[in-house]
Each structure stands twice: as structure tokens, then as C-alpha cells.
């Protein structure tokens, strides 16, 4: 048997298995379940058919369909897959510093989904991520929302809208990271002026597009940057805005007021200083918890109580890793530290899941454990907000994408020889989609 033939046979075997997987119904019984959109269930049952959750309830009170595979997870804890609203995994890149505003750049054209960072994120319990380019530009490119399915290409991980287009937002930034030498702005005033100028151009382009609907002859020449900004103006693409200092936060709110784009504030280090203004604007926040303040002037006043302060005023607040700033494997720790600083336990778990789903326009599909939603969940050894708990399994759309009991996966979770390699030690040539 030639090796090529052998490989082909293996692929056929796995392909047929994958068809069978679609039909499987699994009942996970006995775990403490945090559905997030409902009260915690001390001993619960979660039923998954194919890629979808079909029921969540109390053990014994939830009917297990005939033929379902029962998985006893007594003593474990289950919650929705974690959603990171701001990540740089997959060796992502965006704008190239040739100009401060680059809406034409798509990060999807740069992502390596086989990078170790993606595997580590699965080990951390992340199932949905917003992968973005950095903050060294006023606008560094179009972000992409990915499900961390065990795929081989970025296409395998994309989340498509009804029109078949990959979903994502737009990354913007203000403050010192994007202040540099020309053609970049040298001051905060200039930063805002450059952004306003671009949005005004986009408004004009948008008008031409509208006119062309009546008279196709009036259609402007295609402009990739303007097309993307029009998507922003029309609310199809949410602006994910890096901002730290209280005055920079207010500048972003002012720009949103002027141009009407949909907005999530990111980092928001000084949120505790302007929480009422953020709440009044009804703008959600994606925050980070750092082991210390500083590293730059703007992060000097960052506080762990940002979560508590925003929660108090009803702001939809998610956490993010900003991986590699915080490794994805420590994501749950953000929730623990937010609770330490006064956030409610429910608020912290919500911020790790449902709040992110809302901010990425995916609340219909992910973020909580309820019938009809994607079967994206994690199984933990204990309380999600304890340092001693470990993510044992990560499931996406009914498929297990991380299993701590598997030596290859454990290497991703804990580290060790070969953990940093883009290829796993014992698996040189291909990753099977299913284990």
C-alpha cells in the first residue's frame, strides 16, 4: 500500500465519521451548569444534537432522547464557550504603517489558523474570537470574527453572514499608540481631524452609491477603503475602538455622535472616571484586566474595578485577552479579578460569554446555553472563577476541539517541549478535524 493511498483511506474513514458526528445526540449529565441567560443549575443536563443545543435543564427533569450518548460529567462545571472580543492570535497583521487610516486592509488575509496561539486559545476555553490588527493606526483594518473550529484554513473558522460574507468589525484607535511622525498624526486634535475627514469622504461616497441605485451611470469607481467605511456608516460593521484615557474615551463618543457608527469601546482603562458618560451613550465596553498599571502613560490609571463600575451603570461589558498581552489560557482569570474588585459573579461570567456575543452581533447563536444555540461550551474541573480550576474540554458546534486528557492537547494547555512549534511534536503533516 503506498503511503498516499494509506493517507487517502484515512481521510475517507474520517470523512464518514464526520457525517456520523452530525447525527449524534449527546446528553451531558450531572455537571453544575451556568447557562448565563438562566439561573445556575446545580446538577444539570445539557443535550446537544449535531451542532446545536436542544435542551438545558435539571438532571432528571430533562428528557434524554432515545439513542443519545450519555456523557457523565458529574462533579464538573459547564458554561458557554468563552468569547474574546479582542485578540491578536494567529499571527494577525493589518495596516502597514504607510498611512494612518487603512480601511481597505482585511486581517482575514493574514491569519495563520495553524499557529500555536490558536491551539492555546482553544485550551483556554475560547470558542469565538474577534481577531484584530494592532492599535498603531487610527484605523488599522477590518477585523474578523472566528469560531475556533479545528480547521485547516481561515475559511474553516469564519462566521458567514446570510449573504455568505465573513463577519467582522473595524479596528480603530486613538491616544498615543497611533500618534507618530507624518503621515501619522502628531497630536490628539489632529488624530480626530483625520478620522473625521475620512468619514466625511465616506458619507459623500455613500451618497454617490445611493444615487447610483436610481441611475447606475452615476456609480463611483470602486474604492475598497470607502466601501468598508460605508459599511461602518450603515452599521454593518461595528467599530472596535482602542482607547484608554478618559478624554480619549469621550473623543470616541463624540465621533460616534457625529457619524452614527455602531461602537464598542476597547480597553477603556479609565472607564471608572467616565462611566456615567459611557452609560448615557449606551455604548458597550470590552475591558482588560492587567497584573499592574502602566507600561505606557495611558494605562497608568487602569483599575480592576472598571468591570464593577460599568456593571453598576448597566453598561454591556465584556472582557478580552488582547492575546498576547494576556495569554488566552488565562482568560477566566479576568473574571476572577473583576469579582475581586466588586463585580458580581454573574456579571463576570456574563462578561466572559454573553456580553461578547452581543458586542459581536452573535447573541442569537452563541454566548449562553439554551435550546437552539450553537453547541459551544466548556467543561471545567471546578468553579470558573477559581485559580485552581482547569478547562478540561472545549466544544464548538457539537465537536470537541480541546481535550485536556489528550497528550497533544495537554501540551497546548500546559506548555512543554514543542509547545511553541507551529506543528505539534508527534503530528507532522496534518491535524485531523475530529479526535
Amino acid at each position, binding site marked *: 500500500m503506498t503511503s498516499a493511498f494509506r493517507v487517502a483511506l484515512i481521510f475517507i474513514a474520517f470523512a464518514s465519521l464526520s457525517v456520523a458526528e452530525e447525527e449524534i445526540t449527546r446528553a451531558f449529565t450531572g455537571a453544575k451548569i451556568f447557562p448565563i441567560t438562566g439561573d445556575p443549575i446545580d446538577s444539570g443536563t445539557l443535550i446537544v444534537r449535531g451542532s446545536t443545543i436542544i435542551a438545558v435543564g435539571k438532571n432528571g427533569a430533562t428528557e434524554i432522547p432515545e439513542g443519545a450518548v450519555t456523557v457523565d460529567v458529574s462533579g464538573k462545571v459547564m458554561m458557554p464557550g468563552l468569547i474574546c472580543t479582542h485578540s491578536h492570535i494567529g499571527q494577525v497583521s493589518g495596516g502597514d504603517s504607510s498611512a494612518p487610516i487603512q480601511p481597505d486592509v482585511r486581517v482575514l488575509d493574514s491569519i495563520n489558523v495553524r499557529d500555536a496561539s490558536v491551539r492555546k486559545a482553544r485550551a483556554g476555553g475560547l470558542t469565538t474570537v474577534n481577531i484584530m490588527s494592532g492599535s498603531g493606526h487610527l484605523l488599522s483594518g477590518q477585523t474578523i470574527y472566528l469560531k475556533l473550529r479545528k480547521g485547516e484554513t481561515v475559511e474553516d473558522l469564519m462566521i458567514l453572514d446570510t449573504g455568505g460574507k465573513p463577519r467582522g468589525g473595524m479596528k480603530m484607535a486613538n491616544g498615543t499608540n497611533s500618534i507618530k511622525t507624518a503621515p501619522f498624526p502628531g497630536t490628539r486634535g489632529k488624530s480626530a481631524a483625520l478620522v473625521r475627514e475620512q468619514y466625511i469622504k465616506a458619507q459623500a461616497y455613500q451618497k454617490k452609491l445611493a444615487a447610483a441605485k436610481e441611475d447606475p451611470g452615476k456609480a463611483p469607481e470602486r474604492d475598497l477603503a470607502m466601501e468598508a467605511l460605508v459599511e461602518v456608516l450603515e452599521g454593518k460593521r461595528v467599530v472596535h475602538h482602542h482607547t484608554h484615557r478618559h478624554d480619549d474615551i469621550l473623543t470616541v463618543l463624540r465621533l460616534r455622535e457625529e457619524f452614527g457608527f455602531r461602537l464598542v469601546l476597547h480597553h477603556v482603562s479609565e472607564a471608572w472616571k467616565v462611566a456615567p458618560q459611557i452609560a448615557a451613550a449606551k455604548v458597550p465596553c470590552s475591558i482588560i484586566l492587567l497584573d499592574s498599571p*502602566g507600561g505606557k502613560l495611558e494605562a497608568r490609571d487602569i483599575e480592576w474595578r472598571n468591570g464593577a463600575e460599568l456593571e453598576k451603570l448597566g453598561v454591556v461589558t465584556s472582557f478580552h485577552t488582547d492575546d498576547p498581552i494576556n495569554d488566552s489560557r488565562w482568560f477566566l482569570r479576568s473574571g476572577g479579578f473583576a469579582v475581586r474588585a466588586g463585580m458580581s459573579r454573574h456579571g463576570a461570567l456574563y462578561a466572559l460569554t454573553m456580553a461578547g456575543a452581543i458586542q459581536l452581533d452573535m447573541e442569537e447563536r452563541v454566548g449562553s446555553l439554551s435550546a437552539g444555540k450553537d453547541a459551544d461550551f466548556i467543561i471545567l474541573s471546578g468553579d470558573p472563577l477559581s485559580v*485552581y480550576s482547569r478547562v478540561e474540554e472545549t466544544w464548538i458546534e457539537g465537536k470537541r476541539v480541546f481535550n485536556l486528557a489528550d497528550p497533544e492537547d495537554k501540551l497546548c494547555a500546559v506548555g512543554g517541549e514543542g509547545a511553541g512549534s507551529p506543528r505539534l511534536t508527534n503530528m507532522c503533516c496534518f491535524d485531523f478535524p475530529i479526535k
Partner: protein
Amino acid sequence: MKLFNIFLGLALVTAAQAQLAIQGGSVHTMEGPAITNGVILIKDGKIEAVGSAESITIPEDYQKRQVPVVIPGVIDAHTTVGLSGILNIDADQEQLEKSAPIQPELRAIDAYNARDPLVTWVRNFGVTTVNTGHAPGAVISGQAMIIKTHHLNVSDSNLSPFSMVMGNLGSKALASGKAVPGTRAKAVAILRAELLKAQGYLKKLEAKDPDKAPDRNLRLEALVAVLKKEVPFLITAHRHHDIQAALRLAKEFEFRLVLDGASEAYQLVDEIKAAGVPVIVHPTMMRSYGDAENLSFENAKRLHDAGISIALQSGYEAYVPKTRVVLFEAAMAAAYGLPREAALASITKGAAKILGISDRVGSLAPGKDADLALYDGDPFEYTSHCVGVIIDGASVPVAKR
């Protein structure tokens, strides 16, 4: 003379804080099993007595304080706080001088800013003693020193003004372009050459004829301290082959090596153990990139299990966050298999031993400095708070976070 002594005595008593009795639900002395319902008596800045509540009578004039958990003041065996300032601008970054690859003459005492907010930041979580100084990034970047975190000036009774010479083997210590050293082998070669020079210098110093005494050389004086084993030579090395190079150098020049970082140490457990070298393990949550890409969260556990002396560290951070907190790193090591008491020891007694200050700090025993960290729960748990810090018997204000 007698009168003078009396005056001195009075001065000390006046300067010292009120005598304290700390009543802990759980007291980790690090000298034995944790004491449930323990009491620590503090007098004149020192620990007077430690024991169970039944065994200790609290004198009437002692101020009492009750807390759930007491541990010795936390020791960070390797940090750069006070040198790598909070703002991360040129004006507050003193941890690395790149003008030459080997500069052991750079003293930490000349660089440490005791009032940088990050010193206060780590103290707020119970860190009372730091071994701080020049950062990795040069073959020898300078010296470290040991100071308690309540001092506002460097002159205030350092535990050690010169605790270690700080070295680094690995890609971070290599120069770019055509500058030296461009390769690992060259880095070791220039280090050996410098140590040889120091050997020659030492010989001259030891010559009995004062006329033959060499001119003073600050660089070689610092290396002579290493060769005479007056201070250890800390070498930050992450790759297994860099660790081996450090072990090879220690054997050749017979200095007291302290391995630092040592991401891949788990691959060299037998060699490190045979060499009798302690390891100040990288922060558990250190980013796994570059030379540290193969780090394991179980590294500390595996070294400890093999009987190697370990301490944990906050290390050096170049960006955000600007420092780690060694308590959190020990917590994560405990979560990844390092036994709880061993994890506590890695930031108290074990760290004190490696730093050579265990006669003063690191455990709660009569006669030792009264340095305590107080918590409202398991110090390692995310949701617990440090609620009190006592250094030299005095309560230091704590901003509870």
C-alpha cells in the same frame, strides 16, 4: 558610654511601632505546618513569639489585629521594579544599558527609584522584600540589590546593596547588526574572556606586595566578588542549551550560579540537580514566545519534585503590564501542581534562602524581622485580598485591591 547606650535604646523604642499581636485564622510560619488560630507577637520590629492561641499569652499593652490568613512578607526573588518605571518612557527606564555587553559595575543602588508607583503596587499585595536590579538583555547587565518595599530611599538599610551579578545567555542578550556578541558562542566567549581577566586581577589583588596591587577596576572588582563567591552570578537562560552553557561556565570558573528564567529547565532536571544550582523560575504566566516558547506551567513543580531549590519571580516586563506580581505567579504554579506549601515557600523561605537572607526574613520565627502579609482568604485565590502589610514591625498602609 553607658549614657550613650541608654539614649540609643530610648531612640529605638521611640522609633519602633506599638507592639503588635496578630491573630490569624491560619498562620503559615514556613517553619512547620500551618497553625490554625495562631498568634504572632511583634516587639521592636522583630518577631517575639509565634504559636497557637492557647500557647501564647498576649500582653495587655499589645495592639491586637485579627485576620483570616497570615504568611511571611512575600519575597520577590527577581524583579526590576524601581528600575523599570511605571510610565515606560526613556526617563524612567533604568534597567538596561546597551553601551557594552558586559557591565557588572552598574550598581542597582545607583538606579533604584524607591518611590516608583510599581514598588507600592507590588507591596499592596504583600510583597515586602525585592531582589531588584538590572534586567536581562545584555551578557552582564549590572548588579542587583535587596531592599524592603517600605523604604523611601535606597540608603535606608538595604538588606543587601549588592546581592548578585546579573547575566543573560540567549537571544535577548545578543546584539544586532555587526555588534558583539552576534551569536551565542560569541557571548560565552566574551564572558569567559572577562572572567579570565577577573581571575588575573584577583591574583594581583592577592599578591602580598602592596606595590604590585593593580589599579582599581570597577568592572573586575564586581567579577572578583563573583569569583570569591561573595555574591552569586545569576544567569537568565531559557533554552536548554543556554542553561547548559551557564552550568558549563559555573563549573569552569567555580562561581555560585543561580539559574534564572530557565523555561526549559524541566529538560535538564538531573544536570541542574547534580550541579546543586538553585533556580529562580520564570513567572508562571510569562508569555511563551521566543526563547521561552517551550515554557511549561509545570516547570516549578517538576524542579521542586526533583529536589531542586526554587523561587518564583515577577521578572522583567517590557510593556503592558509593566510588572507582574510574584504572589500571582506562585498562585498559578500552585494551580499547576506545585504543592501549596512549596508554592508559598517559593515566595518566602525558599526565596530567602536562595538570596542568602533567611536569617532575617522569609519565615515567622522569634528573632526574625517582623515582615508579614495578611489576607482575607487563600492568598492564591483570585478573589482574596491583601488586607495588611507589616514591615519591620510597622503597619504599612495598604490600598486594598
